[in-house]
């Protein structure tokens, strides 16, 4: 009994450490990547290649005073950053990094991750509302409508995959794609010819769900100052920041598991955790690349994209795949 508890504690500690480390160093990677793209060095002063920048930033954020604006709803204001980080860490628990590296394997892993992911919108809403700032409220309204609109095509796409594979267990999803690139869900097969489209929809939705550019309307700095975290300083802001990057890692992991064969090698050789990490970091790099290339969309452009394009296509994909599954 006590061994089980110990195991669980170790697993959770590793999940938190992984999430926090990733969040910290993805900020560094993002800034270095942005520097490369913009032909400037990026952070390069603290430590070799600026690698000590994240600890320095973390230390600074943690030692700063947390200022609660007058008239703010104190409880909501304090809860919101926690709600940004906690679901992200919880989601890490079910993600299988390889056949054996998984904190807690569940047969409803997909469902659990999406349940926690939808809590993320809650934190943005509470932050905007609780900080009693007009920019914050406007950003919160935007972010929530955005998250709701993009969860629908995302979930429809997931349903399509679950229908095809017949499992919600992340490990089994990966096992079903083992043996090389031609077995991946991304590659169209006879019964699922529209999978590349589904991948594209899922990719766009992940960008929107994690509030990444070009869909970062919740923190559109040129009109809403800093959006929902305008009033946050010190570690409150730090938690939002870390939550955002943890969510990016989860989004990349989900794409990898659902479409890119998880820890499998493209050639079917030597499957292992390194393939998984390679895939998620390549995806994260593409997120960074997109962010520093595109301007921001408008709120109506964003909602139009979801309701008029992505949802009809994903619904059609669902019905089409269901029909094909019936035939074959």
């Amino acid at each position, binding site marked *: 009994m006590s061994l089980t508890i110990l195991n669980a504690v170790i697993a959770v500690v590793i999940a938190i450490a992984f999430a926090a480390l990733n969040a910290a160093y993805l900020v560094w990677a993002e800034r270095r990547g942005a520097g490369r793209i913009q032909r400037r060095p990026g952070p390069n002063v603290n430590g070799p290649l600026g690698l000590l920048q994240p600890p320095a930033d973390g230390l600074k954020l943690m030692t700063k005073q947390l200022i609660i604006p007058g008239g703010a709803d104190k409880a909501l204001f304090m809860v919101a950053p926690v709600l940004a980080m906690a679901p992200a860490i919880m989601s890490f628990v079910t993600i299988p990094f390889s056949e054996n590296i998984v904190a807690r394997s569940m047969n409803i892993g997909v469902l659990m991750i999406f349940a926690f992911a939808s809590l993320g919108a809650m934190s943005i809403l509470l932050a905007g509302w609780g900080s009693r700032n*007009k920019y914050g409220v406007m950003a919160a*309204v935007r972010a929530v409508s955005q998250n709701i609109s993009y969860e629908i095509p995302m979930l429809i796409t997931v349903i399509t995959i679950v229908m095809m594979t017949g499992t919600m267990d992340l490990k089994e999803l990966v096992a079903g794609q083992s043996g090389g690139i031609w077995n991946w869900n991304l590659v169209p097969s006879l019964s699922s010819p529209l999978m590349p489209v589904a991948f594209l929809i899922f990719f766009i939705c992940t960008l929107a769900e994690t509030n990444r550019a*070009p869909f970062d309307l919740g923190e559109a700095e040129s009109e809403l100052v800093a959006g929902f975290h305008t009033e946050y300083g010190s570690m409150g802001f730090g938690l939002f920041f870390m939550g955002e990057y943890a969510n990016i890692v989860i989004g990349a992991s989900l794409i990898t598991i659902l479409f890119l064969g998880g820890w499998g090698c493209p050639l079917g050789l030597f499957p292992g955790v390194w393939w998984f990490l390679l895939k998620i970091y390549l995806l994260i790099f593409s997120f960074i690349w997109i962010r520093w290339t*595109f*301007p921001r*969309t*408008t*709120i*109506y452009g964003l909602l139009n994209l979801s309701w008029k394009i992505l949802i009809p296509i994903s619904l059609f994909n669902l019905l089409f795949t269901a029909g094909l599954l019936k035939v074959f």
Partner: protein
Amino acid sequence: MSGPIHIQPGETFILNVGPQHPATHGVLRVKMEMDGEYIVKAETVLGYIHRMHELMGENRTYPQVLPNLSRLDYLGALGYTHGHVLAVERASGIEVPERAEYIRVITVELNRVASHLFWFGAFVMDLGGFTPLMYAIEDREYILDMLEAVTGSRLTYCYYRFGGLYNDIDDEFIDRARAFIPRMRKSLKKYDALVTGNIIFRKRLEGIGPISAEMCRKYGATGPVARGSGINFDVRKNEPYSVYPEFDFDVPVYDECDSLARYYVRMEEMEQSLRIIEQGLDKLPEGPIMPKKKPKLIKPPVGDYYQAVETARGSFGIRIVSDGTKNAYRFKLRSPTYSNMSLFDEACEGMMIMDALALMGSLDLVIPEIDR
């Protein structure tokens, strides 16, 4: 996107955009009455950095006020000092050597390119794309280095003198300017590939922020804002000054009236400025840069003098009423951004806030120049 507004009484709120806000690029305050994301009414509040340049112009001698002019618009400062020296030269009848006038035109056009480059970067940043700013600044640095070598400063120049220039340009400047033209043309192609064709960029600007020609006339908007609304007016062509009549260049005019048209106008103006610089370098005459005979003390005869120049932001007018002393009796500046800004209140009614701020970015505001 401007949409129908159905306002319930008491359902609107006031949003203060500024005085400190990332989109206003300075201390401009816009009081917006908002209905959700829609702007019901906007009211621009000016005067946060009013420095009384006009009064200073009346209390100082003509040469003393010259540095003030470059503090109006820190991005295209040479154009403003150009206006002042032209006005005073016309008032006191000072002859300017041809070489000096050519160098003035070359440097003013270089400054215009630098100003438009910075606008380009800042405008795309207003739309959420951060990278083009860095590219634009890299090219702008080249111009600033060039101008620094010859004028002695990077931003607030005091290069022109009544009758000529402070410093002659050397061969190095000419070589660098010649090297700059093909480099900038390449960059313009790069910007075009990076930004203009981008679907998000086009969707955010096409048909957004319409400013009709009537509205431009009503508020006195000039420069790229007016030319984006189909008004073919450029002081360099319509009221030629300096040696501009000797140059062959076009005035880009677009009839679409939207933010994209204003973007196109400025991007094409950079190309036209490059053409002017190219011709100026080819035709550059030899000779002195200051006249042989020049009054020691500038005392224009009694009269009312006006000189308009085309700066990067539009038509800049300077009116000097002289009572024959060494100070101006009345010193009035007509700054283009002030007029361009004043149409914002009417233009943004019923728009969504993000489109309104994109429109504001397309007006190319420099706040110190509005407040003077």
